[in-house]
C-alpha cells in the first residue's frame, strides 16, 4: 500500500492543482506540503523496511493487461528504497525552490513538478517492464515542458535535442522489452527468467546510457543543463540521471547476465572515458552550471564503473555514490540558481569575490563543492573509494584511471569555487546581491545536513542496500 501511495499521491495532487483554480500561494503551498508528506511517507517506509530479508518488500500486484502477462507490480528493494528517498527529498527541495522563487503559470508548473515526483518514484519501484517503461516516459513529459517553457533563452533547441536523444533511446528500449517479454512469456521483472540475447541488452543499455548519460551519448547534457531552470537541472542531475543507472542495475545487469559479462570491458571503457572526459571538460567550462554538469557526466561514469565491476564493493559503492552524488548535485545546482538570481549570470568571467559579506553562501558553496570533489571523509569519498576498490579487483588500470580522476576533480571544483567566491569582485556582483535568505537556507541546509550525516555514517546506505550485503549473490539470484 505504501508504495502505491508514494507513486499516486503526488500525481493525484497534480491533477487537483491542474483542475482547481487555486491561487498562486495556495498552489505552491499545496505542492510543497505534498512533497513534504511524501518525504514523511518514505521515512515511515524506511523505518519499517527489513534490511536482512531477501526479496521484494511493500509490494503490490494487480492485473493490467492480462493477455500479455503485464501487471501493475510495484515494490522496493534496499537500493531502490534509497533511490526513492533521494527522489522525494530532492523533489521536495526543488519544488520548494520553485515556490520560493515564484514561477509564472504556477498551476501548470507545480502540477508538472508533482507529476514528475510521482512518475520518478514509479520508475524506481516498478517491477513490471511495461509499467517501468510507462513511468520512464511519464517522467520525461513534464521535463520537456518544464525545460521548454520555463527555461533560458536557448530552451527550444535544448528541449528538441533532449527529446530526440531520449526518445531514440526509449524506442530502442521498447523494442528490447517487447522482445524480452514475448520470449520470456511475461513482462514481470521479479518472475521473468534471465535472457541471453545481446540485442536485447544493447537495446536496454542504449536507453540507459543516454539517460545516465555516458560518453559519447551525452550530446543533450550541456545545453539542457544550462537552459533549464535551476531546480529542474537539479532534478535532472540528481535524480533522473540515477534512473538511468538504476535501470542498468535492475534490468540490464540482473536480467541479462551473460551479455553483461560479454560487454563488460566495453562498458567499463565507456564509463572510464566518461569519467576522464567529463572531468577534463569540467576543468575548462566557463560557467558554474557547466562545471557541475560535466562533473555529473563524470560521476555517472564512476557509478557505471562500480556497477559493471561486478564486485561486492563496486555495487555497494555505486548505490552509495548514487545517493551521495544525487544530494550534492541537487544542492550545487540550487546554489548556482541562487547565484544566478543575484547576479543574472553564472559565467566565471563576470563573477568573483562573492565570499566577502556573504558567509552563508560561501560556507554552503564551499562545503558542497568539496564534498562533491570527494574530499576524504565525505560520503562521496566513501562511495568513490568503494567503487574504485571494487573495480580494482577487476583490473588495476580502471582504478588507476579513477585515481587520476580524483586529482582532476580537485582541479576543476576548486577552480569553480574560487572563480565564484574568491579573488576580485566580479563585474556583475553588486552590493544588492545579498547573502542567502532564510527561505533558500531552509531548502539547501537540509540537503547539506543529510550529506554530512551520510559522511559520518556511509555504511547506513552502503551496508543496507542489498539483503545481507552480498550484492554479487543477490544480483545472481535475481534479488529473490
Amino acid at each position, binding site marked *: 500500500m505504501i508504495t502505491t501511495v508514494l507513486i499516486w499521491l503526488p500525481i493525484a495532487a497534480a491533477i487537483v492543482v491542474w483542475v482547481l483554480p487555486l491561487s498562486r500561494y495556495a498552489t505552491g503551498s499545496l505542492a510543497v506540503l505534498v512533497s513534504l508528506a511524501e518525504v514523511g511517507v518514505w521515512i515511515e517506509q524506511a523505518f519499517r523496511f527489513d534490511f536482512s530479508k531477501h526479496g521484494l518488500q511493500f509490494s503490490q500486484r494487480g492485473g493490467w493487461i492480462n493477455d500479455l502477462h503485464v501487471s501493475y507490480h510495484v515494490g522496493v528493494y534496499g537500493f531502490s528504497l534509497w533511490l526513492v528517498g533521494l527522489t522525494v527529498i530532492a523533489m521536495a527541495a526543488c519544488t520548494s525552490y520553485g515556490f520560493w522563487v515564484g514561477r509564472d503559470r504556477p498551476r501548470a508548473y507545480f502540477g508538472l513538478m508533482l507529476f514528475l515526483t510521482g512518475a520518478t518514484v514509479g520508475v524506481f519501484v516498478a517491477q513490471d517492464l511495461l509499467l517501468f517503461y510507462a513511468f520512464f516516459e511519464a517522467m520525461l513529459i513534464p521535463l520537456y515542458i518544464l525545460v521548454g517553457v520555463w527555461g533560458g533563452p536557448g530552451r527550444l533547441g535544448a528541449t528538441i*535535442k533532449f527529446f*530526440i*536523444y531520449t526518445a531514440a533511446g526509449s524506442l530502442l528500449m521498447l523494442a528490447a522489452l517487447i522482445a524480452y517479454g514475448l520470449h520470456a512469456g511475461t513482462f514481470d521483472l521479479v518472475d521473468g527468467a534471465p535472457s541471453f540475447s545481446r540485442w536485447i541488452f544493447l537495446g536496454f543499455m542504449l536507453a540507459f546510457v543516454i539517460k545516465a548519460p555516458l560518453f*559519447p551519448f*551525452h*550530446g*543533450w547534457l*550541456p545545453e539542457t543543463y544550462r537552459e533549464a531552470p535551476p531546480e529542474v537541472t537539479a532534478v535532472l542531475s540528481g535524480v533522473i540521471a540515477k534512473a538511468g543507472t538504476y535501470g542498468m542495475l535492475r534490468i540490464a545487469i540482473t536480467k541479462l547476465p551473460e551479455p553483461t559479462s560479454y560487454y563488460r570491458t566495453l562498458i567499463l571503457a565507456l564509463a572510464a572515458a566518461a569519467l576522464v572526459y567529463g572531468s*577534463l*571538460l569540467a*576543468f*575548462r567550462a566557463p560557467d558554474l552550471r557547466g562545471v557541475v554538469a560535466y562533473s555529473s557526466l563524470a560521476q555517472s561514469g564512476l557509478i557505471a564503473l562500480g556497477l559493471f565491476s561486478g*564486485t*561486492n*564493493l563496486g555495487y*555497494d*559503492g555505486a548505490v552509495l555514490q548514487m545517493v551521495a552524488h544525487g544530494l550534492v548535485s541537487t544542492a550545487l545546482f540550487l546554489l548556482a540558481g541562487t547565484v544566478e538570481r543575484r547576479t543574472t549570470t553564472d559565467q566565471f568571467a563576470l563573477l568573483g*569575490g562573492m*565570499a*566577502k559579506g556573504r*558567509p552563508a553562501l560561501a*560556507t554552503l558553496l564551499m562545503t558542497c563543492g*568539496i564534498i562533491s570533489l570527494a*574530499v*576524504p*571523509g565525505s560520503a562521496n*569519498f*566513501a562511495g568513490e*573509494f*568503494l567503487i*574504485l*576498490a571494487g573495480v*580494482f*579487483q577487476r583490473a588495476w588500470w580502471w*582504478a588507476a584511471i579513477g*585515481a*587520476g580522476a*580524483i*586529482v*582532476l*576533480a*580537485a*582541479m576543476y571544483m*576548486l*577552480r569553480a569555487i*574560487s572563480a565564484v*567566491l*574568491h*579573488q*576580485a569582485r566580479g563585474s556583475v556582483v553588486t552590493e544588492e546581491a545579498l547573502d542567502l535568505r532564510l527561505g533558500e537556507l531552509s531548502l539547501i541546509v537540509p540537503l547539506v545536513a543529510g550529506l554530512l550525516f551520510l559522511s*559520518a*555514517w*556511509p*555504511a547506513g546506505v*552502503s*551496508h543496507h542496500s542489498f539483503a545481507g*550485503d*552480498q*550484492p*554479487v549473490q543477490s544480483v545472481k539470484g535475481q534479488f529473490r
Partner: protein
Amino acid sequence: MTAGAWLCLFAPLAGTLVITLGGARIPRDGAGWISTTSVFVAFAGAAWSFFGLRAHGSENGVVSTAWTWLQGGNFKVGLSVFVDPLSTMMMLIVSGVGGLIVLYSIGYMDGDDEERRYFAYMSLFVFSMLLLVEGGNLLLLLAGWGMVGLSSYLLIGFWHERESAVAAAKKAFVMNAFGDATMALALFILIVHTGSLSFASAFSNAPLLSSTTVNFVALGLLGGAVAKSAQFPLHTWLPDAMEGPTPVSALIHAATMVTAGVYLIARTHAIFEAARTIELIAAGTGALTLLMAGLIALVQTDIKRVIAYSTMSQIGYMFLGAGVGAYANGMFHLMTHAFFKALLFMAAGIVIHALSGEQDIRKMRGMAQALPWTRWAFLAGSLALVGLPPFSGFFSKDSIIAAALHDHWYGVILAVAALAGAFLTGLYTFRLYFIVFGRSDGPAPHTHGHGEGPRTMLLPVGILSVLAVIGGWIQFSPFWHPLTNWLEPAARTLGVAEPTNAQEAIASIAAVVLGLAGIGVAWALYGARRRSVPRLQLLQRALEHKFYFDELYDALFYKPAAAIANLSRRDVEEGFVLAAGPDIGETAFDAGRGVRRLQTGLLRTYVFFLGTGMAVLAIVFLLAK
C-alpha cells in the same frame, strides 16, 4: 584512556561547529577563545590517553571503535581510534603546539574582518590532523590525510581576495590530491590481497605478500608522504603556501601537517620494512631534499620563505631517519622541530606584525633594538635549528646522522649529505638572523610602536623558546633514551640503524663543527660584513628559480592537461558530440528534401512513373509465372 582519545579527537570539531553555527552572534575574539579552548581540551584528552597508556602498559595499543563507518560485502571499516605510544606522542605534539599557536593567533589575527572563519578553520585543521594520527585504520588515516589537505587549502587561501593566495591554495590542494590518489591505490592493493584495512591486518600480512605487491603498496604510501611533506619531487607547493597567515605557516607548514609523512612511515613501518628498497628511496629522497632546500634557502629574501625551505630541509632529515629505520629518531626530530620551527615562524610573525606586513628581509635590518624579546626567541630557535648543544636540535638531529652512518655504505653517503646539510643550515639560518637582527647601517625600520605584541602572542613564544632549549633533554642516545623505549612497541628501530657509540660521537662532533662553520661564514658575510657574497651567476639564478621545478611541472602537467581539455572541448565536444544531434536532424531533413523532388507537379512525370511502374510490374508477374 580511549575516552581521552575520543575527547581529543572531537573537542576541536565541536569548536569548529560552534563557531560556524554561531556565526556573527559570537564576538570575534570570542571565536578565538573558543577555538583555543577546544584545542587545549584536546591536549588534556591527549594527556589523559598518554598517562592511561603508561599505566595500562599495553604493548600493542588499544583500538576503540564507535560504529561501522563503511561496509561493503565482507570489507568493513570502523570509525575507530588507536591509542598506542606513537599516536599518543603525536596527539600531544599536535594539540600542545597547536594550542599554543591558536592562542598566538588571537593576537596576530586581531582586527581581521574574517577572524571567526579563521578560527573555525584552525579548529577544523586540528581535528583533521588528530584524525590522521589517531585513526584506527588505514582508511581513517587517509580520511584525515585528505582533510588536512582541505584545511590547508582553506587556510592558505584565507585572504581570498589575493589572487596569489588563491592560486597557492589550489596548487597545494592539487599536489596533495595526487598524493591522496597514490595512497588510495596502495589501499586498493591491500584490500584485494588482505581484505581489510585495519592496522593489525595490514602489518601482519605485509611480510607475507609478494615482493611486487608490497613494493607497490609502499610506493603508493610513499607518494602520499612525499606530497604531504613537501619532499622532492612534490615540494613546489610549500613555499607558495606562505601566502597564508603566519600562524598557519607555523602550525600547518612546520609543526604538524608536513610532518605527517614521517608519521606515516613510522606507523606503517612494517610495510616499508617488507619493501626495504622503497624505504631506502624514502631516505634518499630526504637527503636530496635536505640539500636542495638548504641551497635554495640561501638566496630567499622573504623571511617566511627562508623558514619554509628550512622546514623542507628538516623534514628531509626526518625522512632520512625514518627511511634508514631509525623511527624513534625521526619522531624525536619531529618533536623538537615542532618546537623550534613553530617558534621561528611565530617570532617572524611578530616581526612582520610589527612592520605592518613587511616580509622582505632586506627591509628588516636591525630589529634587535625594537624587538628585544623576539630577538632572543629567534636566536634560541636558530641555535636549536642548527643543532648546537645544549639546544634541542642537537640531540635529535645528530642521532639521525649517526643512525645513517651505521647503515651500510649508502648510509654513509646519506650521512655525508646530512652533514653538508648541517653546514647549510648554519649558513642560511644565521644569514637570516644577522640580516634581520644584526647591527644595521641605516636607521631602524619604522615599527608600529605597539611594542612586541600582546601577551597572547608573547606567552606561546616564550613557552616554545623554553621548549626549544630543553625539549631535547628528553633523550641523549646512547646514554639515555626514554623516547626510543616508549616508541619501541609501535616502531622499533631497525638493527641496522642502531649506531655504535663511536659513530654517535663522530656524528655529533662533525655536525656541531659544521654547524659552527656555517654560522661563522654567515657572520663573515652578513654579520660583520667583512666579505661580500660571492657572485656565481648561474647557480644564483638556478637557486632563485628554485631549480626551475615550477616551470618544469607547469610544462609537464598543467599545460598538457589544459591542452587536452581544450582539445576535448573544441574538437570532440563541440565538433562531434554536440553536433551529432543536430546532424541527425539535418540528415532527416536532407532525406526529406530529396524525396520531395519527386513531387514535380507535372502531369507527364506522374504518367510516366505510372506507366513504367505498371510495365515493370507486368514483366515481373510474367517472369514470376
